[in-house]
Structures are given as C-alpha cells and as structure tokens.
C-alpha cells in the first residue's frame, strides 16, 4: 500500500476515534456478533440448504438447484399446511386486533379495579404457550372439559373440538386469540393515550357523536399502531407452531398442520433438511410479502400530530 493510502486510513481511524465511532461499535458489538451467529448465519445456511439435498449424518451435500422448490409445488401436504397457515393468519390477525382495540377503548376510561382487569387480560401474553396450551387441551376435552360442561348447561350438545377435523383449526384459533389479545390491548391503549385530548374536545364542541369521534379521530390517529399490530401479529401468526404442536400435533388428518410444523417434521422426522429449508424460504417470502404490503398500504393512512 502506498504511503498516501496508509495516510488516509490513519486519518479515517483518527476521525472515527475522535467521533467515538469505535466506542459505539464496541458497545453494540456483543449484540451484532450474537445476532450474526444465531440469526444471520443460520438464515444464510437455510437459504443455501434449500438448493441442496442435505444428508447431515453422512456429511453429503448434493446441489439440486430448484428441485426442492419444484417438489413443494406438487406436495399435497405442504399445500394443505400453507392453506391452514393462511386461514390461521387471516382469522387471527383481524380478530385479535379488533378485540384488542375494543378492550383498549374500554380500558381507556376510568373504572374500579381497572388495573386488575387489565392484568387479567394481559396474563395470557406472559404465560408460556406450551403450558397454556396444555391447560386448554384439557378445557377442550370432550368429556371432562369446561367448554362442553358450559354447553351442556345451556342445552347444546357436546362438541368434539380438537378431535374433529372441522373444529380443530377454529379451536386453535380461539386459543391463539386469547393468547395475543392482551398484548394488542396494551399496544392500542398506549396508542390511544398518545392522542391529544384537544382533538376530542374540539370535535365534541363541533357536535360530533361518540361514534363519529371514534371513526374520524381515533381510528385514523391509531393507524400507525394498527399497522404495527397487523405486521407484528401477521409475522407471529405465520410462524405458529407451539400451540399446534401441543394441542393437535397438526391433526386430525392434517387439518391443523401448518408450515412450520410441516418443515419441522420434514427436517427432524424424515431428515429432509434441504426440503425443510425450501419450506422455510417460502414461509420467509410470505412473511416478507405480507409485511411489505401492509407497510406500503398503511403509508396512505399515516398521520402526524
């Protein structure tokens, strides 16, 4: 390297040192390194694996191009898992966002024991999904579960819940709504409390009804919060696994099989790691697509105040 080159590097280092850029990188280094090792590297490895036939035990990697992806197109079980995942996302995201908003509006007013009720609604969020799902598995039990006991009290016949191919997915969705509701409520509540009260006062003076205020002020000003909730819930919903694994194991007859469960099975039960990696990449594309779409669409409703 020429002396001119060495000199400019030295200058750059001195400038960075003066601006404390090194210090900043040093402070964030642990996070960056760990994120790189445990997130970025496995993701890149998954992307690479998706183009290979991977035989981990033999240490054999055979490049097969897009064959894994082509096989996915004709895989009936994967198709079913994808449809179930989409149904799950389409159901849980709006339902839990809507109910979260309703609860947030209710909790935005003052009433007795408000904090206690808030804690009750938020509790499922901080409960382990596996532990909660085990409890719900019993609640769904056709003979001894609380749901059928309640149905019997009002004269409705027992329902098979998780035991039926038709009812299993809705049953999982009900559980997931219960699990995510509290989080959405808290986020919406924060959004509601950030709306300046003057807007409501002005609207009230102008004669706007309560529903009018909600529609014209609350909903638009909550748009950024709603965007966040929709994107966040969609990402989580696409990755659903724990509750399905515990409640139904993907059954009966694949009626609750979802993409993550299917790729888990391909990888760890059938040892098709390349194929599982291809499934993971398809899921990644779905999540990215939906996130970008929601983000771009939500820009239209972006507000500032």
């Amino acid at each position: 390297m020429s002396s001119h080159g060495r000199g400019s590097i030295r200058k750059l280092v001195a400038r960075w040192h003066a601006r404390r850029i090194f210090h900043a990188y040093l402070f964030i280094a642990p996070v960056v390194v760990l994120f790189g090792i445990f997130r970025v590297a496995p993701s890149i490895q998954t992307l690479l694996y998706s183009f290979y036939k991977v035989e981990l035990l033999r240490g054999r990697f055979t490049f097969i191009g897009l064959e894994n992806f082509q096989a996915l197109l004709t895989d009936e079980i994967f198709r079913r898992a994808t449809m179930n995942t989409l149904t799950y996302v389409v159901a849980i995201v709006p339902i839990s966002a809507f109910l979260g908003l309703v609860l947030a509006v209710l909790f935005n007013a003052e009433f007795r024991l408000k904090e206690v009720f808030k804690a009750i609604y938020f509790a499922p969020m901080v409960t382990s999904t596996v532990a909660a799902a085990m409890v719900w598995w019993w609640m769904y039990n056709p003979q001894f579960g609380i749901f059928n006991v309640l149905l019997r009290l009002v004269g409705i016949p027992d329902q098979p819940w998780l035991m039926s191919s038709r009812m299993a997915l809705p049953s999982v969705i009900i559980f997931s709504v219960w699990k995510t509701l509290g989080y959405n409520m808290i986020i919406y509540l924060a959004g509601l409390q950030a709306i300046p009260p003057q807007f409501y006062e002005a609207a009230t003076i102008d004669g706007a009804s309560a529903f009018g205020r909600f529609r014209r002020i609350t909903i638009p000003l909550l748009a950024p919060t709603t965007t966040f909730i929709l994107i966040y819930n969609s990402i989580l919903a696409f990755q659903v696994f724990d509750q399905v694994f515990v409640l139904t194991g993907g059954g009966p007859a694949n009626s609750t099989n979802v993409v993550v469960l299917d790729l888990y099975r391909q990888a760890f039960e059938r040892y098709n790691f390349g194929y599982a990696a291809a499934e993971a990449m398809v899921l990644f594309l779905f999540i990215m697509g939906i996130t970008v779409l929601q983000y771009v669409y939500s820009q239209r409703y972006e507000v500032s105040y």
Partner: protein
Amino acid sequence: MKVRRLLVIALACLLFTPALALAGAKTITLWYPAGDITAGAAHFADKALFAEFEQKTGIKVEAVGMDYDTMQQKIFAAAAGRNIADILFVDDSWMPGFLKEEMLEQVAAPKAKAWLDTVSPEIRTLSDFGQGQMWGYVQYGIDVYGLTWNKDQFKEVGLDPEKPPKTWAEFREYAKKLTKRDAQGNITRVGYAIRHVGQPHGVVHKHFWAIYGAGAALVDNPLALRGGKTMINTPGGKAALQLVVDMLDVDKSTSLNFPDPRAAFLKGIASMQISETVSIHARAPKEAPDLKWGMALPPVPKAGDRPATNLGGWLYVVPKLAKNKVEAWQAIEWINSPAMDYELCKKYDASPRYKVNWDKEPFKSDPYNQALKQLYPYGLKLPINLGFNGVMEATGNAIQKSWHHEASVDAALAEAERLANKAIADAAK
C-alpha cells in the same frame, strides 16, 4: 500446626479419592424414553439395573431419560452434532428412519445368528431385519396388541364375561349392547373406544388389527428396505375403515369423544379396546385396581379368518458415531444374556425372550404370560421400508378423514395410496 496440616491432607485425600476412582472408570451413556411410555423403559430409573455389570467390568452405565415425543428428533440432532449416546433404547417403529440414514451399527453376523437361534419365535420376528440381519437387541416384555374387555360390564349387559367377540359381526353386536347413554342420549360409555387423534402412527397402530385382519397391508413386502407399494387401498383396507364408520354412524356404539382408548378402558367408560396388552397389564393395578379384564386376539372379519395383530418392541442399538462402541455392546450383551433375561423378567414381571426361560417358573404357569403366548403367533412386525413414516402418515390421515366424515372411505384411501407410494418412491431415491 501439625494437626492442621494433617487435617488438610486428609481432607484433600477424601475429596480426591472418589474423583480418582471415577476417573479410572469408563462411563457410557444410554438414552431411554422417560415416563411410562413403555413398561421396560421405567427400569432404567432403577440404579441397581447395571450395578452387577459395573462391578464386574468397571464400566459405568449412565441412563438418561428423554421426552418420548421428541426423542427421535433429539437422537438425530445429536448424531448430526457428532455427540450421541453410546446406547440408544429405541422404538422399533423408528428403525426405518435410522436405517435410512445408515446411523446404526449392525450386530455381528455370528452373534445375530446365536440370538435368533435361541430366542422365542416372536422375538425372532422382531429382531430379524431380513436374512438374519440385526441392528439391535429387542428388550424383554415385548408388546402385542390384543382386545381387552371389562368383565363386569359384559356381565351387566348379559354377555358371557369369559367369551369375547370373535368376528366383526359379534364385535359390533357386543359393542352396541355395551354402549350406555344418559337421559339426553349422550354416550357416557362406549362399547368400543377408538384412537382417532394424535400422531398418525398411533392411529394406525390401533387399527392395524382390522387392516391386516381384512387382508390389507401397509406395504406389500414388509422386509424390503426400498421399493414396493402400499396395499392399503384394497377391499380389505376399505372394509377395515368402514367397520368403524358403521360403528360410529349406524350402531352408534363408539364415539369421537373418547380419544384415548386405554385411559377410557381403565376409567370404565369404554367396555372394549384394542391396544398394547402390556400397557393395560402395567397400568391396571395402579389406575383401576378393581377392574376385572380379559385379553384375547382381536376379532376377524368372518369365522375361519386368521386373526392379525401387531407386535412391537423396544431395541438396544448402538449408533455408528458412539464414542464407546465396544463397551456399549458389552453392556448390551450382558443385559440381554439368558441369565439376566430370566432375572429381570422375574423382577419386573415382564415376559422373557429366550425359549429356555419360558420353560421356567414363574413364566411357565403365569396366566398373563401364557395368555400372551396365545397372541404372539398372530403378531406381525411393522414394515421396515425406508418410506414407512410417510406410509403411516398417509394411512393415519385416511383413517381420520373417513372417521371424521371429511372424506368417503374410498376417497380417503385413494389419497392415502397416492401419498404412501410417493413416500416409498422418495425414500428409495
């Protein structure tokens, strides 16, 4: 000062002696499923199990319990990470997956021959992976599926408590009589409990008797590792699935609301069930001490047909990547010797494997063991095809779809046939 120094030295000796002793002994690890998944696995929690072996050889056997549901996956992940146990205690239905990955050490041919020549026929069936090849040793107390029935409930509805149903027609008739309902017409006790949820493997296991009894088969050649095709979409397969559809819809003698046949039977809310007899034998004294139950071969489509039932077992295997293979085989051969087979079966009330031990007391005159002997000749081993997992999933899904009325029996089996044959073909690549 001197006393203090002496005390310090003595203490140091006390601390180091066991450490030195341990450092001298070699430790091998054994992974087994924790809990009461299989009666035989519970014995590994007994610290005295390998005590004599440890004393004789200086090799310590450390048994580590694992979660059954994820054990297969953990084994594979451990093998991929080159850090696996020396001995694995595995379900025989996992074997095709392990063989597909060429993960296991093969039992040396002379040792395999010696074993196959001295064990009873059912153990031979389970141990032989074709042409006398063995990949592990089957543990004592093997499983054979059988029909179990509640004798008091038989008496209650006027049936002879010593005569179980022999044919499908009788079976349906008995189940109808045994079913009980409440005032609203809800079933409170099923004549026959079916397994229709959970892992598809479990669903197929519990209906294996009807599928094979009616002449269908999961795979055409059960001892072929590669190739072949499923024989599930046949008149026999259709009849086997239709039997339960009729019991659900026409007879209303079973229900989807009693998903765990063994638990329902032990709770007294199912009068008949067909599953692992060894499990009922192990659980009944604890969970239903007053239960009077009988055990017989599953019913056949019509009088004169040959009954079929599934034989299952757990095996001691050694992974190719084990660090202490020699010591692992030494421990396996010790625990599977004729003398230990006799001792442990007597101690744990299990059925032995060696022909010579069957002729000794208490097995010779024990009614339970003798009843098992009547079932064994009809027991069939699961196929070892490398695409077996896919076949089981496809068949399990077909059973669920038809019983849940999501598809007709014909449509469900046509789909199962397509998926199972694809799994067989894919695995053979």
